[in-house]
């Protein structure tokens, strides 16, 4: 018989695999998903949260709104093609856009490390301003905190945002249908390589610039063209592969993509070969995937190719109609394999 000692009043910590948080828990891979599934979702039990969309979508005072937040902890602060300021604006703008919302107002929390040069802070603030202007959003509330030297990494930023939904579509994984075509809005992997190259002091023949960009203009153009957009998802840390798997798992559908159709710039694939990375899992900050009915694929591609920051869009695959929540890829040599989610960050290989 069990004794009273077998019962505890406090809930046990629901994650037992690691006693402490490791970097892999933030890497956008399996460990992060486990953390969300086992610790965060059960703790808050909200249907809006469980939708696991890029933002929450709800009705308020007669308007349909999207609401989202994200934190930015990038090192280095400045990199080719962007900086922590433009990331913080575009990240939140893009999360709102993926809900099909028109981003309107953003908040900005700055966590500064004691000793940060004012010049650096000014450059970040200028970048926040310029990115907000480029995206057409207003930064309307904020907060500033300073932590002891050594307790932060120069600047951390949190932004949150609200956007207005002005259409009747349900843009979510639940709308993905068998036969849907999958498009990607441009070449993948550049942000990951730009950061890596700056961090490691690697030099390539030409500078690889981050793809950091706002996607709201392209999304608004798709909606204005009355396209039947089924699902949008921006590609962030886990890259194209992880994002596709998230959608496949959420819908229990099978997605088939073709390796030769995925746009990857030559310099990015070259860097991947040298470093032992797979472009499928490299971070992006200005790319999204779009699910539309097959009949609208051509028109969707045309709209994207004429919108800012999505000129390099391409059709990469389709939803096959098979069940199972997996992503398969037809390889360059004509064989087919499963795309799996990485555990954590990609690790550079030995040789």
């Amino acid at each position, binding site marked *: 018989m069990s004794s009273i000692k077998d019962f505890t009043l406090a809930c046990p910590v629901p994650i037992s695999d690691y006693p402490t948080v490791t970097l892999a828990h933030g890497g956008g891979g399996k460990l992060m998903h486990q953390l969300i599934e086992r610790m965060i979702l059960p703790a808050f039990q909200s249907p809006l949260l469980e939708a696991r969309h890029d933002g929450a979508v709800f009705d308020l005072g007669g308007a349909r709104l999207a609401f989202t937040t994200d934190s930015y902890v990038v090192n280095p602060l400045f990199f080719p093609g962007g900086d922590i300021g433009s990331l913080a604006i575009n990240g939140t703008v893009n999360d709102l856009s993926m809900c099909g919302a028109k981003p309107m107002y953003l908040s900005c929390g700055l966590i500064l490390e004691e000793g940060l040069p004012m010049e650096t802070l000014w450059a970040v603030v200028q970048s926040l301003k310029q990115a907000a202007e480029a995206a057409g959003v207003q930064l309307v509330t904020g907060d500033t905190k300073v932590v002891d030297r050594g307790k932060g990494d120069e600047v951390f930023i949190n932004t949150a945002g609200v956007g207005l939904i002005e259409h009747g579509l349900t843009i979510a994984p639940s709308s993905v249908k068998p036969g849907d075509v999958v498009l990607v809005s441009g070449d993948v992997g550049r942000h990951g390589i730009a950061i890596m190259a700056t961090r490691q002091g690697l030099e390539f023949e030409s500078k690889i610039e981050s793809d950091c960009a706002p996607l709201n203009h392209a999304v608004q153009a798709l909606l204005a063209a009355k396209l039947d957009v089924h699902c949008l998802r921006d590609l962030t840390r886990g890259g194209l592969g992880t994002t596709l798997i998230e959608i496949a798992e959420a819908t229990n559908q099978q997605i088939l993509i073709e390796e030769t159709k995925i746009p990857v710039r030559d310099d990015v694939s*070259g860097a991947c070969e040298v470093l032992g990375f797979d472009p499928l899992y490299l971070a992006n900050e200005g790319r999204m995937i779009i699910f539309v009915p097959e009949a609208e694929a051509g028109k969707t591609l045309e709209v994207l190719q004429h919108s800012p920051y999505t000129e390099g869009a391409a059709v990469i695959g389709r939803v096959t109609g098979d069940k199972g929540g997996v992503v398969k890829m037809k390889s*360059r040599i004509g*064989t087919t394999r499963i795309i799996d989610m990485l*555990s954590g960050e990609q690790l550079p290989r*030995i040789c």
Partner: protein
Amino acid sequence: MKFATEYRDEHAAQTYAREIRRITRHPWTLMEICGGQTHAIVKFGIDELLPKEIELVHGPGCPVCVTPLELIDKAVTIAGRKDVIFCSFGDMLRVPGSEVDLFGIKARGGDVRILYTPLDALKIAKENSTKEVVFFAVGFETTAPAHAMAVYQAKQQGIKNFSVLVSHVLVPPAMEAILGSETNRVQGFLAAGHVCAIMGYDEYLPIAEKYKVPIVVTGFEPLDILQGIAMCVAQLEDGRHEVENQYTRAVTEAGNRPAQHYIQEVFQVVNRKWRGIGEIASSGLGLRPEFAEFDAEKRFDVAGYTAEESPLCISGLIMQGLKKPHECSAFGKQCTPEKPLGAPMVSNEGACAAYYRYRRAELAEAGKV
């Protein structure tokens, strides 16, 4: 991407596959030595293109996988010291030690850094004179020249706060250990192209002769591997056992002489324990006595460590080609890339990780896991 996509051409791959099917008349078991080749085979689905008579078994050529458990424990101990900056290639960080991996040490506040070359560790040592900088020098003949160069330069420049934790292994003794085993099934080898780029391939001639086994020096792209298989099968069907070079664009018989010179200058051949396989005589490299001052095992007094492997892990059998990853009872259950029991589930080049990443769903569909 020039010089890579050409070697991933679908039409050429199918042509090689047809040629292999055409010449194959008997069942053959081939081993690709290198984990990089294993990953390319599984990633591109090369084995799907082969006739059922050809079985590929995956060799011990993953430096992460064969690094013994006690060496990981030594690395973890050293990396946990407050006075140490511990530098390593990326994929060593998630290899499980007896209790914790290097990522875990980093999470606890250890200064663990991922580098691409040991020469960067020398630079870090110069910039941090109050710290001890240690580089985790693992790998086959491929990484040995860079490690040798780092140690050589440290001595030349009198850098006292630099040392290396060495676990270098050599390919030919491992091949001999596999061929000499009573349970050996391997009838032909695809030798690791990049190892041969450094060492050349004349050291394989006596092995091919002694064990009557064809050895084809092979590259890493799908067409390289298919051509290597075709050359190996052609030899087997003809009853030949020669050393041939498929990877002529990178490998010469003599190899890279300056690189070999620095390896010999700094390292000597020693007995080495291989994770999952055990000790193999004269199968590794250790620092020569003249460079003993750069030996991290001595500097941090960790030489006497021993460790026990998980009884569930059959990585030794897998690396000798006697079992496939999914034939392990722990595969995908107690052992996953998130919680690996053995190193082959961790590394990019590990056979278990390759099967887990690319084959798990198919194996599950077929009821094999």
